[in-house]
């Protein structure tokens, strides 16, 4: 039986009819059409599907779409502040080569955004623990940590 779900994605109101057993991840990718959020393991181990729900990072694969009713979902597509400007994290990831195959990148960027929103000057240890639910098989993480630290400095400098 399909259920109607009203929620917002990246600030935009959406309504969709979904099966009760459909994951938020599948609904975002296949029903809403936002394929930036990746399906890695589909069991909450890899973090590639990390999105923010009411501001909190969750694995979209471990949440049902029907549970998004009334909630605000933020995905990688909403990270960019406007069309011709990248988020400082996205910019830093490009400059530092923090993305190789790119499959983990959307989840890591969403997690890093939350990390820096809560803690603008994280220590190396805090970054490592903050990203412990996000697996990258390409980079060895060093460039990712460098990019996050660099973005943190830039965001701090840009603050009035």
């Amino acid at each position, binding site marked *: 039986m399909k259920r109607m779900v009203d929620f917002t994605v990246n600030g935009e109101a959406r309504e969709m009819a979904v099966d*009760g057993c459909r994951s938020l991840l599948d609904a975002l990718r296949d029903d809403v059409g936002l394929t930036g959020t990746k399906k890695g393991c589909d*069991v909450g181990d890899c973090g590639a599907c990390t999105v923010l729900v009411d501001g*909190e990072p969750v694995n979209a694969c*471990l949440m049902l779409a029907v549970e998004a009713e009334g909630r605000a979902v933020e995905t990688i597509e909403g990270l960019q502040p406007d069309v011709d400007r990248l988020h400082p994290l996205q910019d830093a990831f490009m400059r530092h080569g923090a993305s190789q195959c790119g499959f983990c990148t959307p989840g890591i960027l969403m997690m890093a955004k939350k990390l820096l929103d809560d803690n603008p000057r994280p220590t190396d240890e805090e970054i490592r623990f903050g990203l412990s*639910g996000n697996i990258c098989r390409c980079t060895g993480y060093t460039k990712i940590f460098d990019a996050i630290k660099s973005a943190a400095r830039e965001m701090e400098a840009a603050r009035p």
Partner: protein
Amino acid sequence: MRRFDYHRAETLEQASRLLTELGDDTFVFNGGTDLLVEIRERLRRVRNVVDIKQIPGLSDITYDETRGLTFGALVTVGRLENLSLVRQRYPNLRSALASLGSIQVRNRATVVGNICRASPSADTIPPLVADGAFVHIYSRTDMRVVPIAEFFTGAGKTVLAKGEIVTGITVPPAADNIGKAYLKHGRRKAMELSTVGVAVSLAMEEGVCSDIRIALGAVGATVLRAPQAEAMLRGTRLDAAAVRNAADKAMEECTPISNVRASADYRRDMVGVLTGRAIKQALETFA
């Protein structure tokens, strides 16, 4: 994903009725971080899930000096982990909460879900057992309260009857003379299931241990107490020799198995090491 039907309960009565009437393959859907994995990996046959998250009154957290800390079934691991009260008064529980899964998982997973799953390696169970917590259980005929040590009947098994729903957990108040610790042993520091987990909760009066509970995780079908080791320590000053002897006794009292994470012998050795360390750490609370 394997298909299942989703039901949303508005009241405990309705949830209980659905759990009873929809048949054996019906499960409570709370945080979902374990159930959805079991469904996808075909570890559990599920036809129906009953979402309890819209039921009012299950999200509260309260603390008072006589009753202690009470939290509802919907309280997530992440929410409890970030409470300063838990940090200060329940450092053993806090340590277990912070070591469970990832931040993403902790934002969804609930402590009540963790105990109802009744995994022998569940992180939150040893500190709750060491603290002598109580489990509140709803059924359509009455409410009952069960000491957490009596809640588990085997690996993955609990005393819950069909249609019963855990509504919350109460952890007794933490007086100033009580020291606590939880040590989790794994191959890495995060995103890890416990190979062995040891929780200690102890009370000191004028330098003498007046009470101690030691709870051992992942070394038996359920989380175990170490009653003989505890008895050896009560009335002592918890000096190094007494702690060493008790840790040896705890090794005898556990019943580990060998599996993909560790051998039984290794687990038993780690019980000895971690019991000693956990007592030492709990004592440092008073330093």
